[in-house]
């Protein structure tokens, strides 16, 4: 193991914010879309600030779809998708028309509906109902706040592998149908932004990398 985290640069990610968080926690990381860098990394982060079709277009143009699939789906290397980075792991999205996703996790991405009590985009700090603490939320308290900023959300097609291994590991408290986090073996996704969620977010990164066996220079 090279003990290296790769922040996948597909041009629509806020990778600098993710990089700042990882640097504070003392992890070795690269920001890249080069095939060699991707093959040499142990863990991937798919950041995301952008629209779904734009993200998929960039992944295609940079020839990343096949390489990532090889590492993540075949090679079983851990990956954490953040916000849009989580959504593109689904089968498809209805953002600005119908678009195919990476298809790693069964489900679709649809638009949130606004009502009198709930404005869209869903912007701000929200607390979670955590269904499965291990591994992402092992350090999170019951009143942990995370920062959300999205107008589309992931709808899983299946329930996962039963009560012990549910696909959805946390939901958002206000709007119960919003999936806040999921896990399918080595594939993790969070709808909120841990890199922007102060110590609650740093704790989540710490739990994730400990689970992956990545060492920090601070430890």
């Amino acid at each position: 193991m090279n003990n290296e985290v790769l922040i996948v640069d597909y041009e629509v990610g806020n990778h600098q914010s993710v990089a700042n968080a990882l640097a504070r926690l003392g992890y070795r990381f690269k920001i890249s879309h080069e095939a060699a860098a991707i093959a040499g990394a142990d863990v991937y982060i798919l950041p995301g600030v952008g629209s779904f079709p734009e993200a998929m277009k960039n992944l295609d143009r940079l020839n990343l779809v096949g390489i990532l699939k090889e590492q993540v789906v075949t090679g079983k290397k851990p990956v954490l998708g953040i916000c849009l980075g989580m959504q593109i792991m689904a089968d498809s999205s209805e953002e600005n028309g119908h678009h195919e996703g990476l298809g790693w996790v069964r489900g679709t991405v649809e638009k949130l509906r606004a009502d009198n009590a709930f404005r869209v985009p869903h912007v701000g700090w929200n607390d979670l109902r955590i269904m499965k603490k291990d591994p992402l939320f092992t350090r999170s308290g019951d009143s942990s706040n995370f920062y959300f900023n999205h107008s589309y959300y992931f709808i899983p097609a299946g329930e996962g592998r039963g009560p012990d291994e549910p696909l959805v590991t946390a939901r958002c408290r206000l709007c119960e149908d919003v999936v806040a986090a999921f896990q399918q073996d080595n594939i993790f996704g969070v709808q909120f932004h841990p890199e922007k969620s102060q110590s609650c977010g740093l704790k989540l990164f710490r739990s994730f990398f400990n689970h992956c066996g990545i060492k920090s220079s601070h430890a």
Partner: protein
Amino acid sequence: MLKKRIIACLTVKNGLVVQSIGFKQYLPVGRVAIAVEFLSQWAIDEIVLLDIDASREGRRPDFDMIKNASRRNSVPLTVGGGIRTIDDIMRLIHSGADKVSLNTVFFDNPDFIKEASRVFGVQCIVVSGDAGKNKKGRYEIYSRSGLNPAGLDPAAWARKAEELGAGEIFINSIERDGSKAGFDIPLIREVSKTVSIPVIACGGAGHPKHFYEALTAGGVSAVCAGNYFHFTEHSPITTKAYLVRHGLKDIRLDSYANYKEAAFTEAGRIAKMGEDYLADLMFEFLPEEVI
């Protein structure tokens, strides 16, 4: 529960954070990176950084300044000033911004807002506007940092911004800017009623009760202040503690220092603690949080 956001606005002029009064007077505060780091540590919910020279001087955003400022920041950062192209937004996000605030370009090239939200998603695009009263005494939106009346009332402006693809509306009051007289409640309520996207109110904070009024009577999703947060230790946390004490439940107050037990003076500041409490403080051990 989705929390109401308490946001700090850093007005940047000549590369320094300044206090702004009535869009006319500017008093220096200090370095951008330091202000961002402290606000982030003091549990602010979000930071908006506005470079007020950029559009006036016709130059692009200062990407190095943003990169430097974002290093010690762990809350969402919205950046505004001088943004004209998709590449500007891309570089800002790659420098550590999470959202962008668009103001001048709304008047010069409204289609740009459409294009920006198509590429980056609506959640990334904040459209900001400065409202003032015109000669007839009616609210009007002003462009060019409050200089030119744009011929749009705030509701019409906000509706158009939402149609173009804004994800949030940032409404500032020129008259209340730096006045400490409180937010312009009729103005922000009107804008908030008009659109179905979140609205951020700015301009006039001088007392924590002003935040309370804006969040209740004003009906906004977030309240933003600039000058109010400067020169006072833990100002965002004490403001939140005041709001929680006065009955607001949807406030994020989970920092180590939370002032939940504190009393407040009439000026809205933390009252002096009793002598026994202060004496005990000398022996209190404050552990640094290990993550």
